[in-house]
């Protein structure tokens, strides 16, 4: 079964990767992506909101779609909501497969779709002011790679 969760509290990506890897002994390869709030910018905080009836089901559908395209043994998608600080993990995606190219492609595909199509709205706080983040053209260009 896929492991797909929305998290409202901080999480530890490395511990999640270790547990995920342990779950798939027949998989020779585990590809993971950890997305964090970047430090060193002027962003003081980041807040992600979601819409419960759509967001988690959409993430589960994405895991299923990735499984349908590549031979993966397991998929992990964890996504934070709420307020985060620089350095905090936002997202962890992992895929386990017998052959590594499947895991690379599945993780890459899931990230592109999470970024461009999932039901999250992001705002950033700079100099004490919150501002909504607009969709980025590059996210849609990334998505078009899979058509």
């Amino acid at each position, binding site marked *: 079964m896929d492991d797909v969760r929305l998290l409202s509290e901080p999480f530890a990506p490395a511990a999640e990767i270790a547990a995920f890897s342990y779950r798939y002994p027949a998989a020779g390869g585990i590809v993971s992506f950890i*997305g964090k709030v970047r430090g060193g910018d002027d962003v003081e905080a980041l807040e*992600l*909101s979601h*819409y419960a*009836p*759509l967001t988690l089901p959409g993430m589960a559908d994405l895991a299923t779609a990735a499984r349908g395209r590549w031979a993966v043994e397991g998929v992990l998608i964890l*996504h934070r909501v709420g307020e985060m600080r620089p350095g905090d993990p*936002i*997202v962890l995606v992992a895929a386990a497969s017998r052959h590594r190219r499947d895991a690379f492609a599945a993780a890459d595909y899931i990230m592109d779709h*999470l*970024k*461009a*199509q*999932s*039901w*999250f*709205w*992001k*705002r950033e706080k700079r100099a004490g002011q919150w501002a*909504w*983040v*607009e*969709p*980025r053209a590059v*996210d849609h260009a990334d998505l078009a790679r899979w058509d």
Partner: protein
Amino acid sequence: MSARLVFLGRLADVAGAGALEVAPGALADVLAGLGDDLARALTGPRIRLAHNGALVDGAGLVLADGDELAFLPPVSGG
């Protein structure tokens, strides 16, 4: 008797709240009862609607008692 409007992302700022209870009825009438700025923001070309958790086209939509209608601006990724 009420229906619930939910505003995501920047629409919550325009509405001044994340949600609003309104009288049930045709969506057009519900929107007419809101302020002009909010009604305009909610009917923008890139705003998607979810009626009781399912994406819908707003044309001809009627909200019944207990319904939830969410207004979804373009997403901005994880």
